[in-house]
Structures are given as C-alpha cells and as structure tokens.
C-alpha cells in the first residue's frame, strides 16, 4: 500500500488540459534602480502602511547602483514544511496562506530556499510572502518586475 503524505507534490499540479500552471513574480535586478516603489506599493496595499519591513518583495542595495530583488517564486517548499496545513496552492499555482490556520511557527520562513518569506511581529505573528498580485509590476518605472505564467 502506498500512501502519499505530502499535502502537495510539485509536479502534481495541473490545469484542466494537463499543463502545469505556475504564476509567479519574476525579478530582474539588473534593471532595478533602487527607487523602492515596489516595496511602497506592496506594503501600502497589503498592510495599509508604507513600510519596507512589511513588503512582500524586498529590494536591497548591494553596492553602488547595484540592487537585489527578492520575491517568492512559488516553489512550494513551504507547503510541506507547514505543520498545520495552512499553506496550499490556488488555481493559479500561487502558494497562499490561510491566516486563520497559521500558528506563526515560521518554519516556512526558516526553510524558504530563497529567503522570500517574511515576518514582522509588530503587525501580526503570521508571516507573509508575495502572492504574485502584480501591483508592483505595474508601478515599477524600469520594468524590473514581471508576472510570468508557465
């Protein structure tokens, strides 16, 4: 008898035609000018507060005119880390969190392969991440961000 224990297995998510749907925010740090508009847009949208610590995308300055961009690529590693099953994929393949279920353990944060899961206790104990809403893409002045569907 074989039982599948994982709540999600990466290659099992298909659309109705059998193709894998994966929608994600692709970053192009080489184009980034460090204006921070993406973080402002994100935190203002989702937390109603312009605060980089609340942004689900992170821009960091590596050196002079050299920036890094980090946002969730929807790989799904966190889904199998979650002890309460609070993380799952939606119909677009985006990893979503059920905040009512989440117990704030941050194993998803600690085990994120790209360090793209964030937390900020001053607002709430549950962590947060990019859900590929695309608002930052629209606001980015230099096209350093794009929504990709594969």
């Amino acid at each position, binding site marked *: *008898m074989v*039982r599948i*224990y*994982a*709540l999600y297995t990466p290659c099992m998510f298909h659309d109705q035609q059998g193709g894998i749907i994966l929608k994600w925010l692709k970053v192009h740090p080489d184009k980034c000018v460090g204006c921070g508009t993406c973080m402002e847009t994100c935190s203002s949208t989702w937390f109603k507060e312009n605060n980089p610590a609340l942004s689900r995308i992170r821009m960091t300055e590596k050196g002079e005119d050299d920036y890094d961009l980090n946002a969730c690529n929807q790989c799904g590693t966190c889904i*199998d*880390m*979650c*002890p*309460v*099953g609070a993380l799952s994929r939606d119909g677009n393949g985006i990893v979503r969190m059920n905040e009512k279920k*989440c*117990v*704030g*353990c*941050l*194993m998803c*944060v*600690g*085990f994120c392969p790209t360090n793209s899961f964030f*937390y*900020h*206790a*001053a607002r*709430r*104990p*549950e962590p947060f991440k990019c859900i590929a809403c695309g608002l930052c893409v629209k606001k980015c002045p230099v096209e350093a961000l794009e929504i990709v569907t594969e």
Partner: protein
Amino acid sequence: MSKEMKLIAEWTYKPSDVVRGYTNQTLFVNVGSRKFAAKPVSEEMKLKFTGGRGFDLKLLWDAVNENTRWNDPENEIVISGGPLCGTTQYPGAGKFYAAFISPLTDQTYDSNSGGHFAPLLKLAGFDALELQGKAEKDVIVFIDGDAGKIQILESPFDDVNAYTITEALHEAFSDGSNDDKRFVSVISAGKAAEKSLWGCLNSSFWDIRRKVARLKQAGRGGGGTILRDKKIAAVVVRSHKLSGDINKAVDVQVLQDRGNKLHREIHDLDAQQCRMRTVGTPHLNEIMNEYHLLPTHNYKFGQHPDIDKIHSNVYEGLFTQGIPDGCWYGCSLACAKAVDNYTIQTGPCKGKVVTVDGPEYETVASLGSNVGVFNPQWTIEANFYADHYGVDTISLGTGFAFVCECYERGYITKEHTGGLDLNFGRADDLMELIHRMAVGKDEFALAVGQGIRKMKRIFADRYGAPYEEMEKFGMEGQGIEVSEYVPKESIAQWGGYFLTLKGPQHDEAWLIFMDRVNKQLPTFEDKAEALHYFPNFRTWFSLVGLCKLPWNDIEPADNATAHRPQDAAKVPEHVQNYVDIFNAVTGRNISKEELVLMSERVYNFQRVFNLRMGKGTRKDHNIPLRALGPVYPDEWLAREEYYDNELKSVGVEPAGLSVEEKIARLQEARLTQWEQLKDAVYKRRGWDRNGIPTVRKLKELGMDFPEVVSVVEKHARPEDQWKD
C-alpha cells in the same frame, strides 16, 4: 467504542486567558471524590518554582505526606508545561512534565513527553493539572477548554490499550474531520500498565499528513501504572484557541528572531550534524557503537559485530521522509520519526497495518542490542506493543536484558519462565513475554513487570537465584532501570546516571564525551562542577516546558571554534537564546546565571522532597558494579588491553594476575573513586556528606520554607557536615 460515554460528574469554570506564559491557575480533579477546583498561582509560586516540573512538585508536596505510597489515593499525577510551553516560534516548546510518587522508586519522579497535551491544557486555561483519587470503574477525564467544563465520563472501552483508545477519543471529541482532530490531545496508558510497574503515559498529537494519532511517551518512572491504578482510562483536553501568540508574550519579535535563526541553523547544518530531520535520535546507533557505549547483552559490551543491521541508514529507510515530524508546532528539528504501513506480526493486533512512533535511539538499544536482537523489524514491533500496552521501552528493554543474563547464567530456567527460552537474542520468546506481561499471564510475567530491583528479590526468594550476583549486574539505581548508555567508560557519567534525583535516566547529564573522549574533566572537582552545572541547566527545560534536543543536537556553525571546549559543550549561543525567549515571553529580565539558579531551587526542593519520602540520602545513591566496570571475565577479555591499561592507570600492575583478580582490583579502585566522586559532587551542590541539602544552601536559594527546613533538620546529622 462499544458504547456511549455516560456522564458521571461535571464542573464548569471560566477559562483563564494566558498572560505572559501563565494562565495563573491550576486544575485539581479528584476522580474518587469527584471534586474539582481551580487553584490560583501566586507570584511567589512563579518566582520559586517557575512552572512545569516545579509546579508539579509544589502541588505534589502539598497533596501527599511522608507515608504516601504510589497506590495511595492521595498520590497524584501532576502535569504541567511551563511558561514557554506552547510557544510556536522556537523549536521544541510543546513538552509537558509529569510528576508523581513512583511505584518503582517510592519517591518523586518526573517524566516528560511531547505531544499536544500541555499546550492545549494551557489554552484550556490551566498551568497545571492535578489528578488525584481513585475511581470505582474506568473513567475518562475530559477538559473542554472551548466550553469551560470538566467532565468525568464512564469509559466505554473494553480495550484500554493506547492506540485503540487514542484514535477513538480524537474522533469522539472532534467533529470527525482530519483538521479538527488536531485540537484534541489524549493521555493514556494500556493493559500492561495495570500489570506492571513500568507503565508509561502516552500523550498524543493528531498527524494531519498521516491522518493518525501519534503517541509520544512520558515513559519513565511508572506514571502509566498510577493512571491505571486510579482507573483513569484516558485524559482528554480540547481547545480551538490556537494562534501565533499562544503565550501572549511581551515581545513576539524576539521569539520570531531567535526561532527563525534556529530554523536556519537546522536548515543549513542538520544534515552535516545529527541528521535529526531524517533519522531522529537513531543517528546515535553507530556512534555509540564506535565508542563502546551501545549497551549490548545487558551492558556487558559496548560494541557488536552486527551493528550494520541497526545502522542509522537502515532506520532512515524505514522512516517516512519529508513530513514535518515535530511533536509540537514549530519544531523544525522534527525528530518524531515514524514507520508507516507496518504490518503487525504477532499478538492481538496481528495483521493490522499501523504507523509506529519511533523507534528512538533508546528503544533501538533497549529493545535491540541490549537484549541481543539486531533486527529493526522486531524492535519496531516491540516498540509498537510497548506503547500500545503502555509500558516504558527503556525499563522494558533493560529489564529484559537483566532477565536474559539471569537465564544465561542459569539462575532461571524454562521451568520458571513458563517455557520461554530467554537467552539473549531469542526474539520470538522475548516478544511473547511482552504479550504475557500485558495480560499478566503467569507469575513470571508479573514478576518481570515489577522491575529489576524487585525481580532480584523475587528471583532469589522464588527460584533460589544468588542475590549478591544479581546485585552486580542488575542495572538499576534507586529502583529505576538504567537508560541506554554504557556507563563504565566514564567516572563523570557514573554521576550523570547515579548521583541523580530520580535514578539513572539520561536527562540530567551526559558527560561521557567530555570526560572520557575529550578529557575535559580531569579532576574530581572538574567532574563535580559539570555534575552541578549540567543537571541544573537541563532541569531548566523541565521548568519552562522545553525539549532539550534543540539545545545541543544542533549547534551554531562556529560553536566549536568560538569557545573553549568546556564552554562549547554548553552551546553558549543557544543558552543565550533561552535567556532571551524566557524574557520575551514573561517580561522578566533573567541572566544565564539566574537561569541555573531557577533550576537549583527546584532541584534542591526535589532532593528534600525525596528525603521527606524516606529516601534522598547517600545510601540511596546506589550503583551496580557493572556500571563501574567489568564484572565477569568475558567482559574483560573482550577488551583485555584496554582494561589492563585501566588497571595500570589506578596503579595496579596487571602482569601475573588472573582475570578474576584483575576484575576485583579494578572494582576496588573504582569503588573508591565512586565515593570520592560522591563527596566532590555533594560538596559542590551544597549538600552535606550524606547527600542532604544544607539549610544554608536552602536559604541561599530562597527555598527555606519552614516545612522544607524542618525535613532537613529532622534528618541532618552533625557528623555529616563539612568541616571547612
């Protein structure tokens, strides 16, 4: 379930909210008189006893008297998590600690378990639970944190064995859905706990991946035996108040930062360090074997040629991988491994396909190498039945190893054992003995379940076995069986096992590598310092509701290079984490020195408690000769050169001596060292020569309660006081 649960008694209460780690009240339930009460927790109780095992012992002290024995109705099982218990951000924060007067040792015992019981108990509004009295017939105690009521229900179960009862109660007290079952936790024992003194407390959590109830154990000391003596079939707690800030901490950000940092360490380093996430504690199997520490054939040997059959890689293949196997939320060390789809081969569950929790290292050794069985399938089956029947796997394995040696030496025969061949390695007959113990089939099975200390007497009286010889190799201290490390390699570990509060259990100090391999404890004073610090530091976990494993089964990458070796063994960065998270939850401002002081208060209180129960003096710190060194020639000859050198190191030239003479001379030297160690340790701990805490020490600790001081004054003798 064969029938519905009939309500016997009910009591309603107002669930108290958690504030800074405490609910500030404890729950008292007497299943005999059907009395209930909520007792307030004072600020002094928090300052002096902290929580967890400290609260347990305080409440137990108030409940019993000096004549109380384990099966008296006033004896209690007290269960408490502690102020950090339930924290989700930091790995290993779901433990409860149970305390009781033990049927094996007739003094206090504290035993801990993972699972979801303690966090849910806290969410139901209580810092601790006292279970007292004896019911007339089997009952279920139900703590409904959602509705604010406690019920005593008539047990509907014909089969009280743990897996049966636990799965049924998760179903009965949830809406039946997979997700809802995780808001319930069950404490149970099993049939063997009724017939043996080795009864364990099983504590459950619902595994949403596997869709089964998982069982963790407060295995040691006979708590399950007391549960069944009280005719409690199960204790159930339910609460849906789970959140990301269970303890209503003062500073959640600190919890998040420290927790996330540890998650990262585990993510980056576990695969190179202990492989807890893939194999759990069985990563120790081959390491212990390499250093002659894997107990084999009743601790005669520390190595075995069949080690590859029980290598951690074999267990890695047996454990299902890729599941968040924490026994509480947020434990990314995830050592709660399980074997899935195991088909039971024997006994009443034969043919059933089950999930078996573990085996952990201790069980691999106890129900494995120590009884001469190197077959993981057998160990898994024995582990399943031990949990199901409610027996501690460590005492069971060490006890069986003693039986095997008695059989091998001809002290007992098939005539006595009911036809069983109990030589080492006789897997089928040993499994049959487990089944016989569960139902108390015959006088031999019942005798085995009494534990080694009583077995020695029974075998001598009933079968004419030589008591003095059995004293040499019966591996018990204070009445409790030794856990699974060969102690004869290290003087400091004699203390780690046998100069303990409750007997040879590995939760006080594990100093073999520091002492023997790394030679960091050269003098008796060095050993005594370690036997002061580590037992006290590790006691702290039991006060606050934490698991010890994320302390040093994962270490920061620079731990070994950033500190002196003696300090590196303390894992300073993780100690600081503990200081930080304690302060972040409670709002207090302790230092790492005060952390140890908190433990010392409870450690010394427990020592005096044991004195009050007629134990707790120097003579009660017994040690079998097998723990000090070889007892018989086959042990010596297995490592002849090594032991000859050991003899030389104590100034005896082995040339010209027979093996028997060598054994006698080494025993003589080591018994002298043992007494020297006792003196050094007692002195360092602030105890007198007789092992009794001095009044001065109690005053220093602020534990000079009149009733505590009066116990010390009653027993302390002037001639036992140190001169300087």
